[in-house]
């Protein structure tokens, strides 16, 4: 049966648009039809920009037709996680405190996509301020996993992953501070990539943990990931942490070849707490790559268990400061009754932030307090440096590291938030990648007995994003369609 337009990959759809087989309007129609049909239940979107999208479509169509706009993503409908600023489109971070916030500028990553001719169709749901692993901390309701609506889509970029998995857009942007792109991609059976820190500008991304945050693509296949990443990567003078790279032609890494690639599999990643079905599927993927010519070896990564406390110390410390600007003075939510300035701050922030965000602000404030700074924050930075060193050692031997993206498949809705500590433990395979600034990609490698997708994670050395794309592309060919 022929695929519907919204079911095509971004590149497939872009090709049809570029040759005039499909109009930009038809592409939008297909995505919006899927949204109208399914999003009542899935709730991947917080805001649709239908009118703006159709308006832009006319202009984009003209430029495609007269040959002045040629880009694989020209005319393709994209969804944006709601923590990236979009000029004139509400951007809330799924928080009550920004419930009415309309930015005056767009984030650089979104600008890059728009310049390529992609069309923003809406903003996707997420954990409030990207703090969470299930999209259940959103102030505006949960998102359901399109593969099984009794389960969460993962998080924090759960809305983007669900929108892609439900064919409610061709591709989407997510952000990843501790696994927030890779883990929901894994839970939803799509491809998600966090590039090397500094590859994509953070300008316009509403910060959670600035030293860890990175924007990346969530797509239906690895080809789309390469195209999208190539499009959004740019050296940006507005972001001091942006890196001037000359190797961002990621599509040139779409080569089916892993012969001679050295892949390390950390034994520490397959210990206690890992679901046996997940373990088996990931090991099978390693075997598949080995059969295709890769050299696969087990090794000890070490320090894995220290990653979680170090991560939550650093991320929460930065978050506690980054979120100070939400105070009810300049924009967003302001409490109704207050006695004085202090009361205004207290009420606004107590009413405006949800419990998980408040928990992290308090943890972050605590670890930065005088008397505790050295014992917590500085120590966490030292652990971070040691983790980086452990990865450096690993990458002196291996081209990449292979493992699961999460210990289990998507949990059921409503089962995670009551026990935040075990929710944090679920981030064990993803967070050290952020601490070390490394690239990581997640793609589906099977399903469990309940039919829920299992994610395979490949981790590369800094600036080796292309190597990851090549291996992921090869694996995808071996695996075949994942529908």
């Amino acid at each position, binding site marked *: 049966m022929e695929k519907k337009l919204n079911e095509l990959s971004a590149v497939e759809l872009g090709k049809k648009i570029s040759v005039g087989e499909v109009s930009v309007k038809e592409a939008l129609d297909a995505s919006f039809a899927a949204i109208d049909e399914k999003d009542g239940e899935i709730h991947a979107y917080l805001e649709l920009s239908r009118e703006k999208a159709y308006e832009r479509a006319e202009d984009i169509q003209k430029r495609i037709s007269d040959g002045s706009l040629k880009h694989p993503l020209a005319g393709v409908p994209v969804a944006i996680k709601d923590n990236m*600023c979009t000029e004139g489109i509400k951007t809330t971070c799924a928080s009550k405190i920004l419930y009415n916030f309309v930015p005056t*500028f767009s984030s650089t990553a979104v600008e890059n996509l728009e310049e390529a001719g992609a069309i923003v169709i809406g903003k996707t749901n997420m954990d409030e301020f990207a703090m969470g692993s299930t999209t259940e901390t959103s102030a505006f309701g949960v998102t359901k996993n399109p593969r099984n609506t009794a389960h969460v889509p993962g998080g924090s970029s759960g809305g983007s992953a669900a929108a892609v998995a439900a064919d409610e857009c061709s591709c989407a942007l997510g952000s990843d501070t501790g696994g927030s792109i890779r883990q929901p991609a894994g839970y939803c059976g799509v491809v998600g990539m966090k590039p090397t820190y500094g590859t994509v500008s953070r300008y*316009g991304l*509403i910060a959670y943990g600035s030293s860890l945050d990175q924007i990346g693509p969530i797509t239906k296949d690895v080809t789309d990931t390469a195209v999208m990443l190539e499009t959004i990567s740019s050296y940006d003078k507005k972001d*001091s942490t942006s890196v001037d790279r000359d190797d961002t032609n990621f599509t040139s890494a779409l080569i089916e070849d892993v012969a001679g690639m050295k892949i390390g599999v950390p034994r520490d990643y397959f210990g206690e707490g890992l679901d046996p079905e997940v373990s088996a599927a990931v090991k099978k993927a390693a075997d598949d790559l080995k059969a295709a010519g890769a050299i696969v070896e087990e090794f000890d990564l070490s320090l894995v268990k220290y990653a979680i406390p170090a991560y939550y110390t650093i991320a929460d410390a*930065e978050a506690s*400061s980054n979120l100070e600007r939400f105070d009810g003075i*300049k924009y967003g939510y302001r409490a109704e009754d207050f006695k004085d300035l202090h009361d205004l701050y207290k009420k606004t922030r107590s009413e405006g932030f949800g419990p998980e965000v408040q928990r992290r602000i308090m943890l972050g404030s605590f670890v930065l307090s005088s008397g505790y700074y050295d014992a917590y*924050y500085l120590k966490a930075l030292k652990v971070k440096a040691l983790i980086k060193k452990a990865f450096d050692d690993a990458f002196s031997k291996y081209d990449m590291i292979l493992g699961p993206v999460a210990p289990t498949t998507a949990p059921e809705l409503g089962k995670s938030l009551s026990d935040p500590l075990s929710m944090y433990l679920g981030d064990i395979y993803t967070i050290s990648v952020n601490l070390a600034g490394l690239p990581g990609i997640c793609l589906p490698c099977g399903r469990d007995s309940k039919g829920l997708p299992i994610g395979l994670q490949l981790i590369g050395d800094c600036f080796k994003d292309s190597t990851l794309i090549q291996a992921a592309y090869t694996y995808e060919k071996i695996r075949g369609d994942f529908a």
Partner: protein
Amino acid sequence: MSKEYETVIGLEVHVELATKTKIFCGCSTAFGGAPNTHTCPVCTGMPGSLPVLNKQVVEYAMAVGLATNCNITRHCKFDRKNYFYPDNPQNYQISQLYLPICRDGYVEIETGKLSVNQKNAGMTESGEVKTKRIGIHEIHMEEDAGKLVHDDWADASLVDYNRSGVPLIEIVSEPDMRSAEEVIAYLEKLRMFIQYLGASDCKLQEGSMRADVNLSLREVGSTEFGTRTEMKNLNSFTSIMHAIAGERERQMDILESGGKVVQETRRWDDAKGESYAMRSKEDAQDYRYFPDPDLIPVDISEEWIERVKASQPEFRPAKIERYKKEYGIPDYDIELITESKRMADIFEEATAICGQPKKVSNWLMVETMRLLKEKCMDADKIRFSPAHLASLIKLVDSKVINNNSAKEVFEVMFEEDVDPEKYVEEHGMKQENDEGAIKSICEQVIEANPQSVADYKGGKEKAIGFLVGQVMKAAKGKADPGTANKILKELLS
């Protein structure tokens, strides 16, 4: 039984840097814009915005550090100082705590010889001239906050972010000062360095230089420091002097009556001549400083330091010495001219062209100072070029115009920097130097003023002045009064 106490003072001096744009965005730092017109997403703390460091700020901070003998931190970082206040749009200020750009410097001050400012502040000479070294603990870079405007009528406050993100340096001294005189000498020295560097105009009144005074007392001979207080809101040398005297008095009363000084921040009220406590150490905020993850560390190379060193100007003490040797003008002139680098630059350039230091100095000391005062301007805002001043002096020397016309031309030059030669030409101001022509005017004047002529001849020497005036009037000011005087006397003898 009264003990003898020593006053121990350290200063924290904030200086607003003279960059064209703000420290972390491209917005203008110009004064006087309508509220919130010199703003952008960065300096109003909009979600998603990110700071990018203005390199000029680093250069100015380095230049001040080098002038004050500091070590430059090769790998310096910015930290966030977290506190909630509406003038601070992110609710953290980007500053430097752990690795400030400059450390361990000093300036040398002279005491015993009072400057104009010290005299104006009401100090009296203490006699012997002494040199003292005041240590500088550190200099760090940071951003200024916005301004709150309280609207009493509407029971509301408004906030203006035009100043938010204007670059500051904070110069923290060691507790090395012992008197108000030393404090003012230190501030003047800092101000001279910074103004000569062009890094700031350092105006206390307008807030581009702000000094917080940390003061404690200890018994003479003691090596331990007493408990200190910090005084804010000192916006003139006079208020600094009064605040020091007042705080010394207050602390002494406490100590004498057996009490303990509380470590606190106090606000000086200049009108009432007293200070009151703002907050004590107990309710001091925990600023939760940590390195700003949005900014990368600033790595300062040896070359960069050398480049900044090479572009350091000749500072005032060296200039004064050189002027004494080179120009042969009075010390008083040198003091005043070198008070502003702009004035000194004009002096040197104009002198180089016309070769007449005393005449250049006179124009600066008399007419320039008068006009500056009249127009309430600062010397660094002088618009006329040294070349034009030199050519005005030449016009007078070669008797093309007389002194009175020259003053007239100078006023126009002061306003619009016109070329005096052209101006004199265009306005027909050239002096009449033809003795024949002046003689005929003199004859007409003698004819028309028989009474004055009679007075003069009758021995009233002063009457000649009136007649010269009449000649000048008839010549429309273009005659040389000296020539007119000579011819009149000849005709009347």
